[in-house]
C-alpha cells in the first residue's frame, strides 16, 4: 500500500463501516429473508417461494407498473419544466434574486408536507375546486375532476413534479453556469439561430448532467412511500406501499414477500446506479 492508499483507507474506514453494516447489511439480510431463510425462527431451508408467490400475483405487477408509470411521467414533466426554468433563471432580469430564492425554497419542504399541501389544493373540495366555483366552472365538489385517490394518481404526479422541478432545475442551472456561454457565442457567430443554438449546442452539452439528476429523481420517486401513501388509493397501490402493507400485515408469513418486493425495488434501482456511473464516466471524459 502506498502512503496515500494507507491514508485513504483510514479516512474511509468510518464511512465504509456505516454503509457496510447498515446499507449493505440491511440489503443482504433482506435478501436472505426474501429466500425464506431465517434460522432464528426455524426457517433454515432457503427457497424462492416468496418470489414465486410475488410474481404470480397480479397485485404486484400492477404495483410495479404503477410505480414505473408515476416515476416516468413525473420525471419527464419535471425535466422539461426544470430545463426551461434553468434557461430562464440563468439570464439577468429584475427580481432574479427573489425568484431564485423561491425556486430553492421548495427543496427545503419535506415530501410529507408537500403531499398534505397538494391534498388541500387538489381535493374535490380543495382550494382549486373553490377557485373553480368562483370562476363559474363548477357547481359542486363532484364536478371537480378527482385528482387525489384517483385511478391515474394525478395528485401524486403533481406533487412529484412540484418537488422535482426545482431539484433538477437547480442542478441544470449549475451545469449551465459551468458550461458558460462561449460555445453559444461561437455557434451564433457561425450563424446559428436561437432554436439551433438551444437544440444543437446547449442541450447536448448539458444532457449528461441533466440525465444524472433525472436518474436520482426517478429512483427517488420509484422508491418513495410517503406521497402515494397519502394521496393514492389503497388498492391498487405502488410497489413501496404494497411492500409496506405486506411487511406490517398481521400475518407474519407475508414478510418474506415484503422482503422480495424490497429486493425488486433495490434491483430496479441498481440498474439505475449503473446507468448513473456510466454517465458520470462520460461526463468525466468531456
Amino acid at each position: 500500500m502506498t502512503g496515500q492508499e494507507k491514508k485513504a483507507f483510514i479516512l474511509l474506514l468510518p464511512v465504509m463501516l456505516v454503509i457496510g453494516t447498515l446499507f449493505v447489511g440491511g440489503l443482504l439480510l433482506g435478501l436472505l429473508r426474501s429466500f425464506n431463510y431465517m434460522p432464528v425462527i426455524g426457517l433454515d431451508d432457503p427457497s424462492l417461494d416468496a418470489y414465486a408467490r410475488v410474481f404470480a400475483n397480479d397485485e404486484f405487477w400492477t404495483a410495479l407498473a404503477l410505480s414505473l408509470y408515476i416515476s416516468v411521467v413525473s420525471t419527464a414533466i419535471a425535466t422539461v419544466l426544470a430545463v426551461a426554468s434553468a434557461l430562464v433563471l440563468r439570464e439577468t432580469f429584475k427580481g432574479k434574486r427573489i425568484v431564485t430564492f423561491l425556486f430553492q425554497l421548495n427543496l427545503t419542504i419535506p415530501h410529507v408536507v408537500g403531499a398534505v399541501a397538494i391534498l388541500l389544493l387538489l381535493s374535490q373540495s380543495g382550494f382549486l375546486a373553490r377557485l373553480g366555483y368562483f370562476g363559474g366552472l363548477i357547481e359542486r365538489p363532484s364536478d371537480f375532476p378527482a385528482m387525489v385517490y384517483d385511478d391515474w394518481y394525478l395528485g401524486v404526479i403533481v406533487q412529484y413534479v412540484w418537488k422535482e422541478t426545482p431539484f433538477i432545475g437547480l442542478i441544470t442551472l449549475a451545469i449551465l453556469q459551468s458550461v458558460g456561454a462561449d460555445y453559444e457565442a461561437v455557434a451564433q457567430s457561425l450563424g446559428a439561430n436561437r432554436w439551433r443554438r438551444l437544440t444543437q449546442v446547449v442541450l447536448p452539452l448539458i444532457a449528461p448532467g441533466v440525465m444524472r439528476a433525472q436518474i436520482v429523481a426517478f429512483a427517488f420517486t420509484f422508491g418513495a412511500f410517503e406521497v402515494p401513501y397519502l394521496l393514492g388509493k389503497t388498492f391498487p397501490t405502488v410497489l413501496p406501499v404494497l411492500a409496506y402493507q405486506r411487511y406490517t400485515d398481521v400475518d407474519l408469513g407475508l414478510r418474506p414477500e415484503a422482503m422480495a418486493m424490497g429486493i425488486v425495488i433495490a434491483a430496479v434501482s441498481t440498474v439505475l446506479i449503473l446507468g448513473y456511473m456510466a454517465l458520470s464516466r462520460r461526463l468525466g471524459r468531456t
Partner: protein
Amino acid sequence: MRERPNTIFAFLGGPQFRRWVFLSALMIFLVLPLLPLAIWSGAFNWFFPSLLPSVWSTRAWAYVFSPTAAILPALWNSAVIAGGTVAISLLIGIPAGRAIGLYDFRGKRLVEFLVLAPTIVPPLAVVLGIHVVFIRLGLADTMAGVILVHLIPVTPYVTMILAGVFANYDPEYEEQARTLGAGPLTTIWRVMLPSIFPGVVVAGLFAFLISWSQYVVTLLIGGGQVQTLPLLLYAFVRSGDFAISGAIAIVFIGPGVLMLILTARYLTGRNQSIGGLGGA
C-alpha cells in the same frame, strides 16, 4: 438578435414578456400549494365553496404550542434526531470526502459505487432487512436506532458534497502550516476546516433536510414509540383535522426555510459539486 421596435405591442410579443409570463406561472405553481396550508392553520371552519374561512380561529396554533399536546415533544425528537444525524454524518463524511476528493487509491471506484448506492436504492428496501436485527440489538423503538437509519440516506450526500469540495482543495497550505510548527489537530482546526467551511455548511444543510423529512423509516424503526413531526402530521391529516395539520406543517417547514435563508450565500450555483448532486 434584432432589436424590436420599442412599442407595447412589441413588448407583449417579445422575449421579456414571454419570460415574465413563464416566471409568473412557475412561481404560482411553486407557491400556490402552500397557500391553503397556511389558511387552514388559521381556520375554525372552512366549508366548500368559501374561498376563505367563514370563522377564523387561533385554535390550531394554541394547540401546537400547548404543553399538553404531543407536538412540542415531537419537535424536540425531530431536532435531536436531525442534530445527531448531522453531527455523525459530518464526522464520518469529512474524512471520507477528503479521501475521495484528494487521494488516488486502489478500489476507489468500488468506494464511490458504495457511497452512491444509498442515494439510488430507497431506504425502505434496506430498512425492512435491518428491522429484525435492530429489535434484537434493542435499537428498535429508540432514538439511537432512528438516528442510525437516518444515516443511510444522509451519509452519501454529505460524503459526495465534501468530496467535491476536497477536489478543489489545495493541501499545500497544510504543508506550510506544518513547516511552521502546527500540530495535526491545529492544522485541521485552523487550516483545513476554515477552507472547507462553506462545503461543510451546505453538507450539513442537506443532512438536516434529509433527516428532518424522513417518514417511513422512522415509522418502521421507531415503531410508533419515537414520535417525530412528520408522523404527527400524518396522524392529524388522516383524522381530517386540517387546521392542526396546517399549523404542524408550517412549524415543520420553518427550520428548513430558516436554514436556507441563513446558508443561501453558500448555495451559489457556481459550486459544481453541489449542483452535481443536490438533494432529493
